[in-house]
Every structure is written in C-alpha cells, then in structure tokens.
C-alpha cells in the first residue's frame, strides 16, 4: 500500500533531475521522512543512484532520513531569539520533559535547536510538530506542550 502511494507522489513530477528535491520534500511531508524504501523508488524513477538521493536528502534540514519522534520540539537559538531568552526556554523544556537538546534518546520527544525562521520581531520562536509559536515565555511553554502531551 505504502509503495503504491510513494509512486503516486513521484508521478506528479516530471522525471527531470531538478525535480528530485521537490519530490523528496513532498515525500517527506507525507511520510514524515524519506526512508530507504522510498529512496530506492525515487532513485529508480529519476534514473539516478540511490547514493545521489541520500546525498541530497541528508543535506537539507527539512528532509529527514529517519523516522521522527512523535513530538518534535524546535526552538530557535539564533542571536535575536537568544537576546529574548530562548536559552531559558530550552532549559525549561529540558527539565520539563527530562530530555537533552539534540539527543535522540527518547522515542517520544525530541528537542532541537534551530536557526532563524525570520520571525525575529516575535521571538523567542518555538515550533512543535511544524506549528509555530511566537513570543514564548517560560510559563507559556507549559501550556503549549500541554496540547501535545
């Protein structure tokens, strides 16, 4: 069933090399990551090697090569958000969920520090499973995570 869907995704794209990245993005959006199986099918379709697919996939932050945890929390730690105390929010989340930023030890949660999303006027910025929250504070972080846990 899954195989059928991946094929229907890539059929939307003309088999030209410049369409590889859009196809990977789309696959990632639907499956949550681009696994070996999908990579193989995409490589065949575009007539390139699987390593080429992995090469491109592994480079971009938005495309994942592994299954992602249930709840992915991303907090911007670029200079502007840092000035607005994003580090205190990172440690608040670390304490709350008993995880470390950047570690994949928990299968349920993952906390990532990310770069600027261009919302610097409304920092600190936090992203949970793709949903963006602005002006996050140490107290509001509890309510936000409460929606997911």
């Amino acid at each position: 069933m899954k195989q059928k869907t991946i094929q229907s995704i890539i059929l939307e794209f003309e088999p030209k090399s410049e369409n590889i990245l859009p196809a990977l993005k789309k696959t990632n959006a639907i499956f949550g990551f681009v696994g070996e199986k999908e990579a193989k099918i995409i490589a065949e379709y575009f007539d390139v090697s699987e390593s080429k697919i992995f090469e491109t996939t592994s480079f971009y932050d938005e495309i994942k090569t592994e299954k992602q945890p249930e709840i992915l929390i991303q907090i911007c730690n670029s200079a502007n958000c840092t000035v607005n105390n994003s580090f205190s929010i990172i440690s608040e989340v670390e304490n709350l969920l008993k995880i470390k930023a950047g570690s994949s030890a928990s299968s349920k949660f993952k906390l990532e520090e990310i770069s600027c999303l261009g919302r610097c006027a409304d920092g600190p910025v936090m992203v949970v499973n793709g949903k963006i929250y602005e002006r996050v504070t140490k107290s509001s972080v509890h309510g936000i995570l409460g929606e997911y846990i």
Partner: protein
Amino acid sequence: MTDNLKVLTKYWGKINPLRIEDYICVGGYMALEKFIFKMNPEEAILEIKKSGLRGRGGAGFPTGDKLEMVARNSPCGVNFDYKIIPTSRDTPQGKKYFICNLEESEPGTYKDRLIVDNNPHLLLEGIIISALSIEAKKAYIYINGNYEKQKEILEIAISQAKEKKYWGENILGSNYNLEIEIYSGAGAYICGEETALINSIESNRGEPKIRPPFPTEAGLFGCPTAVSNTETISNIPWIISNGGERFARIGSKNSPGTKLFILSGAVAKPGIYEAPTGINVRKLIDQYAGGIKKGKEFWFAQIGGACGKLLLEKELKAKMEFCVGTGRDLSVQMGSGSILVVDKSVNIHDLLISWTDFFRRESCGKCVPCREGTFRLWEIAKRFRDGKISDRDKTAVEDILWTLDNTTFCPLGKFAGTAFRDAITKNILTF
C-alpha cells in the same frame, strides 16, 4: 533628497497585496510598460548601472554590472574558455536564467518576507524587468522553505500577473517571452550563497561551487545566470521609472539608494524601517526605533546578521554602507541591514553559543577549516559558559579564528568568527 523618500515601502499597508488592481492603481507595472515599449534591454541595464544599485543581500556587488555580464555572455558556453560539465543530463541549450534569491535565513533578517507580505507585485515587476533585460527566458524565485504563506501570496500574484499578460508569451503583445517558477528551498542557510542556491535548484547538495566560472558565465544548468536578492530587485521598477541618476543621488555616494533596516533587541520599537544608505547607526536606533527600551542599558549592537561586526556605544556614529573605508567617515558594512541591539542584561556566554552553534549547524561540511573550525569554536563557547576554559583553548581560539578568516572555501566560513573576534578585541568578553 529627504529622509522620507520611500522606494520600497511607499505602499506598504496602503494596498491589498492580494489584488493586482490595487498595485496598478498606484502606478504599478508602469515601469514594465516603459521598459517594453520605450526601452531596449541595453538601455535598461545602463539605467541600472547609472543608479549605482548594489546587491542588498549583503555582499553589495553592483547589480548593473552583474546584469550586464549575463547579458553579454552568449548562452551556454560559446564565448569563454571554461569547459562546462553540464550538471544535469537535460541541460537546455541556448538559455539564460534569472534567479530571485528569497532564501533569506540570516538571523535577525526578515525584510524580504515583508516585501512579499506587503507588496509582492513590486518584486514581481522587478523580476520581470531584470529577467527580460538579460534576455532570460526563465526566472526562478528561490524561496525559503519556511515561507509557506509568502509562497502562497506569490503564487496568487504570479497568476494575477499572468492574466494581465505581464509575463508568459508575448508579454503585453510584444515579442518578449518569460516563464516564472517558484522553487522552494529545504532549510539550509548556505543556499543563500548564489552557487549553493544554483546547486540546490539542480537538486544537488546545497554546497558552494568553486569560482570561476562565475554564475554569470556558467550558472544554472551551465548557462549564464544572474542571481539577485529580493530587496535589490524591488528597487528596479523605481529605477526604470525615475531614472538611474535620480536613484544615485539618494543616500550614500558609494552605495546609493534606500535600504530596509531591521531593528531588533533592546529597542523601544523593533521593526523594519526604510532609510537612505549612509545613515548612522545611532540615528537608526534613536530616531527610527524609538531609542533603547526603558529600563535597559545599551551594551553593543551587531550589524548585519550572524556574521556581522559588533559596535560599541562610541562607534555608533558609523555609517551604514557597502563599501567600507572608502570615505573619510567611519563606516560599517551593513550586510543584510539588520541591527541587533544587545543590552547589559544579556548573558554573553549564551550569545557566544548562539553564534557558534549557528555556524556549526549551517556549515555545509564541504571544506575542513569551516566544518572543524565552527565545531571547535562551539565547543570552546560551551566550555566558556561552564567555566571550564583552559589556557589551551585561549590560544586555540586565535588559531581557529585565523584559519576561518583565511582558508575557508566560501564567505560563510570567512565570517563565521567575526562576532567572536569582535567580542574579544572589544573587551565585551573577558578571557
């Protein structure tokens, strides 16, 4: 010229960005009509050259020169010596490309996003004129993968403009043809660098390429390509309508025009302000952003994003320019135009980790000095915070900063240590 002249933000908030009629009502697409019916491409490029417009992405390369280079190059490898290895098997022959760089992931910078939010047709008009002036048949808009809303706005604008025949086949009944496509990035800071951006559109890893050949000779799919920043392009309609000489009289002599400045941090009114170039930092903070936020004490300001220099209070009279050191007055490289005001309540160790972590994450890994250098700087920054800094670290910092500055492949690495170095030399950080 007054300080109030607005080239880019004149109609922000006054017209509906989702209606092309609103833009046409205020004189929109008149520049395109002028270009098509009254000018030829050489004249348009000459006007842009006369205007002295420089790339607003940060490097400040003269836009007119760039367009002229592409315009002069015959498509796909005829009049130059470099042997081109086509990166794609289906390299289209006889093409030139124009790319609008909307990647914008410089920390503290969101001017391009607001251009699209408030007046997408201004950008589109600029793209069409620029692309036609170099005789490109296809223009790409490379947009940051996070800018989903902006992508939708642009899609609406593009389809409206097509209905009005501002692009497509036989634009406004002339012989000009142009295709426009939006290409969405996938989250990589380095893709704002033009050769990396080109690699990304070709679906390769977004790593920078060696130059020469420059993209103006062999860019996208091996064809001559002009890559320009969104803000730069948005100036083009004004230049075509009002003439390059008038533009050249605005602001600083060596980098004329107005610029969007993004003020953030400990200022009373953070936001985006359009001001003539050559304005000094203090004026921007005091007159535009309402001064320092109440209860905060100014410490230093970082100019131009993550790779920007730090200015202390006494240096705030520095003028914002692209060519630094040419005039008699103190000036500072304005980069993307962002100004981050840091007050004394900020933990400098956190900020140090923020800078170094950013470059560690965003280093593409192609060259060793940058990949290792940014990583080691980050480690040292962490030890600094934890109070575990050793004498060896102190000497290592010097070595790493020198190596980054002198040996990296592309500008990302070169500027990765700028803020760190300034923090040390300006005694913001005490070793």
